[in-house]
């Protein structure tokens, strides 16, 4: 192949490195109003009254919107969330009102004058406490909320969604097992910290057309939701998305767009911007989910898994929104990439008084993988088996079924054993998992195996349009958002490959405009290259058909006799008889000016073929294919202070055929860095009233560039027959196994099992018995 598989530099890089790429807030517009949020200082309280008179009296204030003005309830599957808190606040930082003014400063000043009287309510601090009898209810009548799709809230409890897997016969599988382990892991919510905080602008034109410009991964979902919640004709909603400064799932949720729309509605449709400060982005907009997981596994004495019981209690925060979907994604693949014939699993999106959650890179998989991979290491220790040998023995593959009972074949799953074996080689596993250095420090290795399918809605799809320039180059339009992942360059490579031209001749549209770009479900789920790639192949084939039609007219041959190479259409066996694309893409103009043929416009689309899951057994098809990976971490641990350094991190991924090699390597490295940052330091801290103590980067630390360990990335390339040129999906995978691999390495180093994130030195010190006896570990 000429283009696919090559390391083509990203098309947007020059604009980005020179600071010329434009993001949502970069365009300064005269007459634009600014909305500033008034947020809740309490995690759970009744709103007794809102007095906005003083704020409204500030010169330059154009309007103030509160929950009473926009009572539409929103939510991905369960509509439980008001656009602005109404009568009650359920998390610290929840938007209560928006003050709209001529400029940002005035809005800010006036927002401080909105007086809200609260009656503080008792708080729910964790998923397990939320389920205790007598726990305060966040939503008194959860059963009355409107549902959009398969969602199972539990009346009278803090449960927004309850999903189940019942595969095989758990009881007999459990009894067949001889060696049994039980593992309880937990971590609290955290944040994505995309470089660009979320921002939205909305304007309602006099003819009723609504324009939204936003930093989002989901422009077409915004369009759909404006119909769903506000009754707008989707033909009258136009969403514009310029470059997006990192998404990581945070921008798959729709929040500020609704607030901006309601703000515009309140000021006669004028253009209003509502944008987050860093601090608001951390606590007022949806965050990275927390999880308490309980895993039980049984195995035969020689290490074959016979049964697993898995209970996932997601800290979805105050509203079900994407947490309800993540509860499903987490249970779809809940066993990890292992063959477990008997599975009993429950996944609950639990309400707590925390910021509500949304997707985070890996979509429920980094979280579940941490629990599963800790359990696998516990089991290996109990069996006296090498952790790699245990994983190899139980690796899932063709002929076996997933937890939702999808039959795997040579195409729809990558090669798990090949990834593990390659990892073993790269990590020099044979040289030992634990070495004590002369200075007393301990070097250890830890691994994790992982898999993931997309868990998209059953109608997720993509479209593509190819148009030609007079020079013979093409313009490629899709609805994929460029969020720093480099997908558009990979898509250009796919188009170039099919059209037999250089990728530099494929011009991609970076800005998405939902009025003109064909629909793309969302830029999430490591699925854009696969879905849009398929659509592009169809569009390219459509264009080729038209090119051949034009050429055939002029050459007086049948289109079947023509073929393509190096940007030309020519007669098979006689390459001189043919035309460059530029001679025929707009029709062929003969010497006397007579033009024959048609302008070539290629179109293509793709829709995933999935099914809904059975509510009682989980039986169903949640995604088209499973990319798989094995990851490892090497650490050096100081047993005195319990500090450590991550020396090296490894990823061996089977993402099918790799479209852009260097792009894929850097995507894995970014993912590993993010996974390690989360596992080593990221977490919200709460006081006893569940107010966030560290909603700013001064105290919420992420790894800096330069703190990264050495990173080793390699690929196994098992083609996915339905993917474009055999590609699967890779975007999120680098993140997924890092926490599990790190915790496994550190547990070996510290000589004590570590079940909590983040893995701070003090946490490890306590687990090893540091601190007073009264302090719980």
């Amino acid at each position, binding site marked *: 192949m000429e283009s696919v598989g090559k390391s083509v530099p990203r098309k947007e890089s020059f604009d980005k490195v020179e600071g010329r790429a434009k993001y949502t807030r970069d365009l300064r517009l005269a007459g634009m109003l600014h909305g500033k949020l008034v947020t809740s200082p309490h995690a759970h309280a009744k709103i007794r009254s809102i007095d906005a008179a003083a704020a409204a009296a500030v010169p330059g204030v154009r309007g103030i919107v509160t929950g009473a003005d926009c009572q539409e309830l929103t939510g991905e599957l369960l509509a439980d969330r008001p656009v602005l808190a109404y009568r009650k606040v359920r998390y610290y930082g929840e938007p209560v009102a928006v003050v709209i003014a001529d400029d*940002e*400063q005035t809005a*800010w*000043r006036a927002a*401080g004058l909105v007086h809200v009287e609260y009656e503080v309510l008792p708080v729910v601090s964790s998923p397990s406490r939320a389920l205790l009898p007598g726990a305060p209810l966040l939503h008194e009548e959860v059963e009355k909320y409107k549902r959009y799709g398969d969602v199972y809230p539990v009346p009278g409890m803090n449960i927004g969604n309850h999903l189940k897997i019942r595969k095989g016969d758990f009881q007999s599988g459990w009894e067949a097992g001889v060696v049994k382990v039980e593992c309880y892991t937990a971590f609290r919510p955290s944040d994505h910290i995309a470089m660009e905080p979320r921002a939205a602008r909305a304007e309602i034109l006099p003819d009723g057309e609504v324009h939204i410009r936003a930093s989002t991964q989901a422009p077409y979902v915004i369009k759909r939701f404006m119909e769903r919640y506000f009754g707008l004709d989707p033909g009258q909603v136009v969403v514009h998305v310029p470059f997006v400064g990192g998404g990581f799932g945070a921008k798959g949720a729709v929040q500020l767009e609704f607030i901006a729309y309601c703000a515009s509605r309140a000021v006669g449709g004028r253009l209003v911007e509502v944008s987050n*400060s860093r*601090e608001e982005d951390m606590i007022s907009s949806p965050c990275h989910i927390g999880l308490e997981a309980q895993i039980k596994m049984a195995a035969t004495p020689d290490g074959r898994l016979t049964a697993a019981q898995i209970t996932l209690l997601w800290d979805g925060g105050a509203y079900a929104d994407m947490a309800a979907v993540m509860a499903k994604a987490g249970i779809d693949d809940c066993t990890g990439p292992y063959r477990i014939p008997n599975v009993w699993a429950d996944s609950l999106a639990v309400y707590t008084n925390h910021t509500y959650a949304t997707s985070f890179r890996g979509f429920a998989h980094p979280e579940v993988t941490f629990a599963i991979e800790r359990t696998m290491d516990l089991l290996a220790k109990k069996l006296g088996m090498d952790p790699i040998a245990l994983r190899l023995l139980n690796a899932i593959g063709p002929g076996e079924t997933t937890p939702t009972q999808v039959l795997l074949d040579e195409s729809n799953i990558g090669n798990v054993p090949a990834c593990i074996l390659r990892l073993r080689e790269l990590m020099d596993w044979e040289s030992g998992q634990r070495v004590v250095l002369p200075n007393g420090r301990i070097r250890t290795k830890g691994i994790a195996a992982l898999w993931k399918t997309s868990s998209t809605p059953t109608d997720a799809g993509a479209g593509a349009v190819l148009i030609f320039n007079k020079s013979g180059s093409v313009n490629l339009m899709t609805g994929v958002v460029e969020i720093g992942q480099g997908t558009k360059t990979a898509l250009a490579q796919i188009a170039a490959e099919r059209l037999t031209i250089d990728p530099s001749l494929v011009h991609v549209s970076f800005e998405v405009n939902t009025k003109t770009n064909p629909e793309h479900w969302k830029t999430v789920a490591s699925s854009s290259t696969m879905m849009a790639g398929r659509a592009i192949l169809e569009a390219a084939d459509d264009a080729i058909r038209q090119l051949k039609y034009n050429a055939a007219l002029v050459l007086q041959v049948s289109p079947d006799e023509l073929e393509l190479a190096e940007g030309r259409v020519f007669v098979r066996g006689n390459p001189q008889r043919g035309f460059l694309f530029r001679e025929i893409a707009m029709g062929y103009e003969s010497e006397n000016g007579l033009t024959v043929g048609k302008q070539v416009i290629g179109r293509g689309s793709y829709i995933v073929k999935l099914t809904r899951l059975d509510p009682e057994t989980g039986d169903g098809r949640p995604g088209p294919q499973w990319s798989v990976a094995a990851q490892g971490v090497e650490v050096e641990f100081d047993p*005195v*202070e319990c500090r450590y350094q991550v020396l090296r991190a490894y990823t061996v991924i089977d993402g099918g055929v790799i479209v852009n090699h260097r792009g894929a390597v850097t995507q894995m490295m970014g993912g590993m860095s993010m996974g390690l940052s989360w596992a*080593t*330091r990221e977490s919200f*801290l709460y006081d006893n009233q569940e107010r966030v*103590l*560290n909603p*700013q980067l*001064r*105290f919420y*630390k992420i*790894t*800096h560039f330069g*703190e990264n360990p050495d990173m080793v990335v390699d690929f196994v390339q098992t083609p996915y027959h339905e993917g474009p040129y055999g590609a699967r999906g890779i975007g999120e995978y680098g993140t997924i196994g890092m926490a599990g691999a790190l915790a496994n390495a550190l547990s070996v180093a510290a000589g004590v099992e570590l079940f909590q994130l*983040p893995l*701070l*030195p*003090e946490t490890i*010190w*306590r687990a090893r018995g*540091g*601190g*007073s006896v009264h*302090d719980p570990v």
Partner: protein
Amino acid sequence: MIPFDFDYYRPDSVGQAVELYARLRAEGRNPIYFSGGTEIITFGRLGQLVTDAVLDIKSIPELGALGRSGDHLVFGAGLTLNAVAESGLFPLLGDVARHTADHTTRNKITLGGNLCASIPYRETVLPFLLTDSYAVVAGRQGNAWVSMHELRLAPGELLVQIWTEQSAARWPSVTIKKTKQDEVDYPLVRLALVHDGRGVRAAFSGVCEAPFRSWDMEDALNTPGVPLETRIAEALRRLPGQVIDDQLGSADYRYYLLHHSLREGMSALEGGGR
């Protein structure tokens, strides 16, 4: 965005700065000296600090002083932490400065800003406490010499320089910083030790509410004929206050790290130091 409006002044001399401050105060204004600006900007954008007049003191020559005067070293309060570290004049001060914030931020943070910071760690004060340095403080009555042990600025007073004896700056020293996880973070423990030829001097940040030097603890550490472990244990009994217990680290863990750091630092210093 800084959500409030303010006037910007750039006085050219210490006298102008102090007079201007006093005049603005008399007019009922709320002026603030502005040097590196890192605290003013980061707190200002959150509304945790509000001012209506900033007096940018970076162009006052005396605040940029860096060098030797007689047998003293002179550090202008307006020097950036990177300039202080890169000068190499006072190795211990350089070591402390080099591990305060990140490089980009240290291009802005000034010595005076760190010494007068509202963030409580003020790590660069430790080397000055250990060397019994003096500050030059400007007020409306002119300049005053103030021992670093007694440095408290009244509103409108301006820290101009710090003077340290050259011989003291060359004392063998050790400094150790422990953080929660990241290298760039506030200290759970910042320990600075020097040996003045007669005994060890010790100063701390991150341990108690404010940075401190403790003569009591030094006495314990210098008790002749007593094993190191016993001296350290006695020194720890003489901590001047409660150990901080907050979101960065518990009092237990800080105490543990302090103990370990003292052991590490004392061994290094008694074994020769730098």
